[in-house]
Each structure stands twice: as C-alpha cells, then as structure tokens.
C-alpha cells in the first residue's frame, strides 16, 4: 500500500468513527473546548434540605447529565467506614447519598452501585450509617448497594506512583463508566483531614493498615493515580472537627449543612480544607496531588460558585 492511500484510508476511518459515534465526536471536541479556557469549578452551598442542596450544586456544575450519560454504569463511593449513626458525621450523610443516586438515575444511568470497604463490621456499618436504608428507599432496581467481594480485587500497576508501584483495586470501581466519591469532611489523626482523595482508600484491597506506614500522604496520592473520581463530593453537613475519623461524640460535630462538589478532586479538597481553617497546602496528599497534576490546589485559580 502506498503511503498516500494508507493515509487517506486512515483519515477516512477516523472520520467515519467520529461520524458514527456522536458521543465520541462530542467528547473529542467538548473536552478540548472546555479544558482550555475554563478554571476548574467547585460548586458549594448550604441548605438544610440536602436534596435541594445537591440538586442546586449539580446544576451549578452543569447538571448530572454532564457526568452521567444514559445507560452508563455508575459507582457511588460514600464513606461507610464506621458503625456510627448519621448525626455523628463519621460516614457520608445518607440523605446526601440518596439524592446523589437519584440524580444519577434521573440522568439515565443504567445502574448505580453504592459501595465501600468499612473498618468496622460491614453489615453493621451499612445498616447503622443509614445508607443501606437510604439506597433501598429509592426503590429502583437500578440503584444497588453492595458489600465488596474479596474475590473482585485486581492488582493494578501504578507507573506514576512515587512510593507505591502497585496495589489491588476493586474491579467494579475500575470498570465503572463513572465514579463518584462522596466524602464526609473529617478531622483525621494521621492524614490530618479525611477528604475526597483519602476516600479512594475505601476502594482498594490488601492490608490497608500498611498504607499508614512510610508516608500515608504519598500513598494516598499514589492510589489516586490508579483510580480517579469523575465527580468528587465533600459532605460537610455534619463536619467532624475532632476525635476523627471515627468520632463518637456530638461535641465533635459542627452542623454546617454544607456540601461542595467538583470534577477536580484536588480543588474540592483544597476548598474543603478551608472549612477547617486550613489550606490545601497544609495537607500532604492534597499538595502531592497538585504536584502530580491531578488538579488545582490554588483557590485563586478555582472558579468557586456559591449556590
């Protein structure tokens, strides 16, 4: 085949592919169009009606339709780590999770699965966090809540990782079309703050305790190279300011009724740090995440939208 023929046919093939697959076409251009001029956008707001709040915030981010396309498989990863009731703020608020799942369903998601890998007994965490009942109360067979099956972890190479070169991740999260992390904003003894990037630890296997040793912050950043959330939510409705991440006293909880969301995990975490009177730079994994190019840490370069 002559070079000219080859190039022609290649071009034709691409053109056909773009023509046939409208979404690919759209994606191809929209990403180029969006990426260049826009600052990463973080939407946040307060409202006692969490359902309303979530709707408004997602609207400010361009609607859930921007993240979830019809028929896609969505994994929603709230924090269900602890056997604590919602008011203690140790887990993601069940109403936040519920509305999030509903928004995905309204955007036409084929299947929305809620899952986490708890620290306490999983059944007790799912139940007492209120998230099991919240997801079931939606009453859709497309909305599921599942316990992790230890057989479904797969080893993932992390070529961009600095101190972790590979680690097992949950297959369903890797294979999901859309991954949404919904993290409660909490004080944390060793990570200082537990925010959306820290929450990726709920989708990894192996002996997670080991991750605490030899640089937890770098490990968190490295894990984020293996799995990036398409949408990161910070749930500061019940912000835990002390005794975290497990808490256990209402004295440690500030009821802010605030939620923040962004497609940029570094940006939303950096913003959430300010709720605690800190800066994104103060938290190791947020800083590493910025340095490794996951997103924007500088609040001056973030388009913060208050709804």
């Amino acid at each position, binding site marked *: 085949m002559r070079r000219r023929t080859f190039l022609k046919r290649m071009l034709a093939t691409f053109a056909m592919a773009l023509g046939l697959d409208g979404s690919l076409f759209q994606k191809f251009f929209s990403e180029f169009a969006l990426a260049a001029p826009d600052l990463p956008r973080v939407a946040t707001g307060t409202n006692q009606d969490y359902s309303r709040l979530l709707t408004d915030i997602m609207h400010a981010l361009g609607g859930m339709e921007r993240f979830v396309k019809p028929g896609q498989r969505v994994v929603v990863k709230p924090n269900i780590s602890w056997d604590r009731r919602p008011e203690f703020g140790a887990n993601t608020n069940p109403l936040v999770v519920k509305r999030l799942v509903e928004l995905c369903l309204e955007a036409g998601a084929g299947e929305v699965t809620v899952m986490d890998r708890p620290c306490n007994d999983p059944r*007790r965490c799912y139940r007492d966090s209120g998230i099991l009942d919240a997801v079931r109360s939606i009453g859709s067979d497309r909305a599921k809540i599942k*316990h992790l099956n230890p057989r479904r972890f797969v080893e993932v190479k992390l070529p961009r990782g600095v101190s972790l070169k590979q680690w097992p991740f949950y297959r369903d999260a890797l294979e999901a079309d859309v991954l949404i992390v919904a993290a409660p904003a909490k004080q944390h*003894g060793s990570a200082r703050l537990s925010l959306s990037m820290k929450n990726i630890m709920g989708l990894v296997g192996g002996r997670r305790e080991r991750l605490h*040793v030899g640089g937890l912050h770098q490990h968190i950043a490295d894990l984020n190279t293996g799995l990036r959330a398409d949408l990161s939510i910070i749930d500061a409705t019940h912000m835990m300011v002390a005794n975290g991440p*497990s808490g256990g006293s209402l004295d440690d909880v500030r009821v802010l009724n605030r939620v923040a969301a962004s497609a940029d995990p570094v940006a939303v975490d950096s913003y959430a740090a300010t709720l605690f009177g800190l800066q994104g730079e103060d938290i190791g994994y947020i800083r590493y995440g910025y340095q490794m190019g996951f997103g924007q840490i500088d609040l001056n370069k973030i388009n913060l939208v208050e709804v």
Partner: protein
Amino acid sequence: MSEQSGNGLRQRGLAWLWLRRFSQVISLCFFLYLFLRYRYQDQNLLQGPLHLFFRLDPLLWLSEIVASWRWTWFFLPALAVLLLTVLLGRFFCAWICPLGALFDGIGTALNARRGRQPGNLSPSYRLIKYLLLLVLIVLAIFGFNWIGIFDPLALFFRSLALAIYPAASYSGERLFDLLFGLSPEKWGDSLDAIYSVLKGPLLAERALSYHLLVFTGLLFIGVLLLELVERRFWCKNLCPLGALFGLFARWRRLRRLPAKLCGDCGECKFLCKMDSFATESGRQNLRECILCMSCQVSCRENRVQYRFKASQPAVPHPDIGRRRIVLAVVSAAVSLPLLKVGSKRAQAQAIRPAGALPESEFLQRCLRCGACMKVCVTNGLQPLLLQGGLDALWTPSLVPRQGYCEFHCTLCGQACPTGAIRALSVAEKQRTVIGKAVTDPSRCIPYARGQNCLVCEEHCPTSPKAIVLRPQKKMNPHGKVVTVKLPVVILDRCIGCGICENKCPVEGLQAGIRVRPLVSMEQRLLEKAQGAGRKA
C-alpha cells in the same frame, strides 16, 4: 383374629416408626436452623426461639441451678420434658435429641456400608453414664462445672460452632473461589448474585477460625464414629442426659408388651439399638428403652405393642452399687483441688467478653456451648484450651489479633443461654472494661522505627479516644532525627475492645499494641477509681 390384630399392631408400629423418624429429622433440621440464626441479623438483636433446645434440656437446668443456687424458670420447657419422661421414659433420645438423630443417620449409613450390625458391649459399660452424671453433679456443687462439656446438646452445638461450621463454610468459599476462577468474565456476575444470597444465612460472613477447631472437630468425629463400635454407644454408655432421663424413667407408664423376650424368638435382643434386654432374664430395662419402635415393627409374630399401664412397673435400679456411688462421690470430691490446679491463672490469661460474670461465677455458669463464639461478628471470641486450667476449657476469651470486640455490638450476651455473659444494653457494654491496651515500644512502629503510623488511634472507638498522640523526636530508618506522633494509651478511657491490636500493621502475631487482661488487683483499683469518679 390374632392374625389381623397382629398385622394391625405392626402397621401401627410402622406409622409410629415413621413419625419418629420424621420427628428426628425435623428436630435435627430445626436445631441446625437455630444454630445458623446465631448471627448478626441486620440488627443488634437476636430474634426467635434461639435457646429452645437448651431450654428443653433438664441437665442444663440442673447445671444452672447448681451453679447459681437460684431457681430459674428459664428452663421451664425442660420440666415438661421431665414430666413426659416420667410418663413415657427416654422418648427424648429417639424423638427429639438432634445428636441422637445424627447418631441414627450416621450409624445406619456407616454400618450399611460395612454390611454388618455391630455387636453390643457388656451391659456394665452403661453404668458409666450414671457415674459420670453423679460425678459431674458433685463436682458442679463444689464449684467445678463440667456438665456442659458432656451434655449432648452443648457438645453438639459447640462442635458445630467451633469445627463443623467453620470447615463447611470454608469449603463453600473455596468452591466459590474455584467457580469464580473458571471464568470470571462469563460467570462472575451471576455467581456474585448467588454468593451474596448465601453469604450470611449459610456461609459465614468472614473466614472463621478457632483455636480448638481441630481438637473439637476430631473429638466430635470420634464420638460419631463410636457408632461403629456399637449402635448408640454414646447414648447407652456415656450420655449424662440419658442417665438423668433413665433415672426418671422408673415411674414410666408406657410399657412394652411382652415385657420380656419371647422364649421362642428373642430377636428383639439383637434388634434393640439400646440393648435394653437383660441377657439372663430377657426382661426389658425400661430405663434404657428410648421408644424407637423398631421391635414392634420387626416382630414377625406381631406380638409387640406399647401400652399405658396404671400400675407401678418393676423397673430395676441402675445396678451401680452403693459402694461405687460412694467411691465416685469421694473421688470426685478428692480430685477437686487437682482439677482446679491452674484455675487462678484463667483470670490472668483470659479477656472475657463484656458482660461476663465475675470469673468464678462465670466458670460455673458457662456451658461451653460456643454460642457466644458463634455469634461474635469479628470471630474474636476464641475458646481457651488449658491456659486457664481444666476449669476454663472451651470458655470464651477475646483474642484481638483474631478479631476485636465491636463497639456497638452486644450479641454475645444475648446468645448466652445461661447468663454467664449478661445481656448488656449498648450503653452499658460501651462502659464495660474487659482489658487494657498497652503499647509495646519495641514493636510499635513510631516508637521502634521512627515512622508515623497511628492506625490504632484512627480506629479507637471511645469518645474521647483512649489513644492520643504525642509528638516526639525519633530516629527514622534513614538515620535522620524526625518528629513522629507516638500513640499513648489513656488507661482511664480504654475499655480493652482490642480494635487497636487487631488493626495494628505490625507483622506477625504480636502487635505493637496489645490488650492485657484485667488481673484482679488492677480490676479492684479500677473499680475503686470508678467509684470515686461516681462520688465526685
């Protein structure tokens, strides 16, 4: 006339025989079903007639009374069983006892394979069970309660909980491993669906393991294999519950006719699983007959029937002999100090579950049934072997490296059929101190290696946390002096749940932080401090 009524007897016998088998199967299945219900069922509450079989057991009633010297109505169903025994004899053994049902099933299967019926041992063997009962009661009265170790229901439950179920669940998991491995892409999702349904109700929530798994399992298999020596070996010779029923059967009204072996046949002698016919006189020992109805069904002459008789029967005493009884009682009493050797150490070794009674009372009332260990959500409750002396054999102790005590969970207290572990409210349980955590600076990562870790602090469930951080300068593995956060246990806040030890990333059996049991002095100090706290 005799032809017809005789056939009628056999027919009726056959109906009773099948009814009995049906009752046995139902009873065994129900026992297993209830066994599986000893688990976290989506709420911190055990529901249903969980303790039913224990409550039917008059020997456990006796154990509870002797252990606590208190009357209890909890075992009222056992009274009904006893009253029925007075009327019917040892019906429990062939109609209700789930272990008896298992013996019959396994014995039939094993011996059918070998193509022969086992013989019968000398009748004097069967005195063992009476002596055992006597010795157990005497020992229990003097503070060494081993009744639960020999009680058939406690034995069965314990063997299921500590050996059979973990093994079966393990096999089930490996089967799923195999199936998942065959073609994860093709079958993964449908297998996942099946698996998630079985997980919990049938398969254990987590891979279970117990310290005495092999020991308990082999012992149980050994007991089952006694069927090869003779049918119902356990029931005839060893079972103390059977002996108790035997004692009450002396007033028995339901009797076999003819009362003796027939001179022209005598087949019943070889047919009877309980070997209840005396060799010399051919008379049936009504203490041994368990109403299995086999002789009525098999009688070729259609003579055998069971009838209620108003008159007092001539039931022979269990022919133990007064001297043997005295000897047994005395030797039991004399051996007591020997059996108690090392018991004091139990307290220093064991981390008893929250709600456990004071040690000596706990040891008296614990049935060693294993219900608390079965229900424990983390598999942290483990049986003791001899660490606490013979006294503490099979009693539960928390092994945090294996599983911690879940902060909001009170299931073991609810699962305990006797109240050896009290059923606490969640709030009470969270205040109950079962041990104290201490860091081991030679293993704890921040202390020993100068690296940050703090997994223990993260998981500590008390509020405020019993583990706090103290920044200190340490040399790290690269020889640099850095500031690390050291975990420090605030003893006043620690309840000894052991999640810190469980989650500690230090490799090997010995974690960098460990829960020590409460030894009595510490406990007293603690109670004093708590008392002072309350006054203030």
